[in-house]
């Protein structure tokens, strides 16, 4: 009984937090040490606006347009040299925070390629936040974007980083 109460007490604030669009990405520090590559980005609204000022007017105009109204971007991404280096419950702990307001808009399951889920928090006719979870045997990536976001525009930015858009070559 005690355990149930403690669990509820822990989950209630996390669920309330998630309704604002923000989720807690709780990753043990030891995971970065195991990873061959890791990315840990925490940018709240203030830092986003500061960072946006240093984006180039010409080259980064589309990126600036996508991020200008955001309240935060949080990314954890880990790549490993071998399979099964991370605990799959990490992704579950993020999913558990997403209340009924959150909608799973995309699920991609592939044996050969990455498995990706995209969750969106609707705000009227637009999207108020998204969570992207990619879980592969050798990769775990969790992205939380807080604030009004155009998902199609975000996807279109893929080609802005020197990486050809997949659609153009397939």
């Amino acid at each position: 009984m005690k355990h149930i109460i403690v669990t509820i007490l822990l989950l209630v604030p996390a669920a309330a937090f998630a309704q604002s669009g923000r989720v807690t990405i709780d990753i043990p520090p030891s995971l970065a040490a195991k990873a061959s590559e890791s990315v840990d980005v925490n940018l709240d609204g203030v830092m986003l606006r500061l960072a946006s000022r240093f984006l180039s007017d010409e080259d980064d105009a589309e990126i600036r347009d996508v991020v200008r109204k955001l309240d935060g971007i949080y990314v954890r991404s880990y790549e490993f040299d071998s399979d099964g280096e991370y605990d799959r419950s990490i992704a579950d702990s993020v999913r558990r925070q997403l209340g009924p307001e959150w909608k799973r808009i995309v699920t991609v399951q592939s044996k050969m390629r990455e498995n990706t889920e995209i969750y969106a928090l609707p705000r009227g006719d637009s999207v108020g936040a998204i969570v992207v979870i990619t879980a592969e045997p050798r990769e775990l990536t969790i992205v939380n974007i807080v604030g009004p976001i155009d998902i199609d525009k975000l996807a279109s930015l893929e080609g802005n980083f020197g990486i050809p858009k997949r659609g153009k070559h397939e």
Partner: protein
Amino acid sequence: MNLDVELKNALRRVEPPPGFADRVMRRVAPASAGRLKPARTLAAAAALIAAMLGGWGVHETLRARNELLVAVRIASQKVAHAQQEIRK
């Protein structure tokens, strides 16, 4: 001559030669110009600290910019990949 008189003569007030004050001031002026007054020292220190803090702020902002680009790159790749898979 007694000692009193000799001392009075030796210590009597003598007017300086013409232009003496000007020559002294000319020699003193360059030396004092090189030294900073306390207020100027404080201002210089404040400017140095401000420059250091400014440099730190720029460094932090540039780091945030790079993190932003990395975050957007990862997010856009994942979303674009998911969209491509759905369209297949």
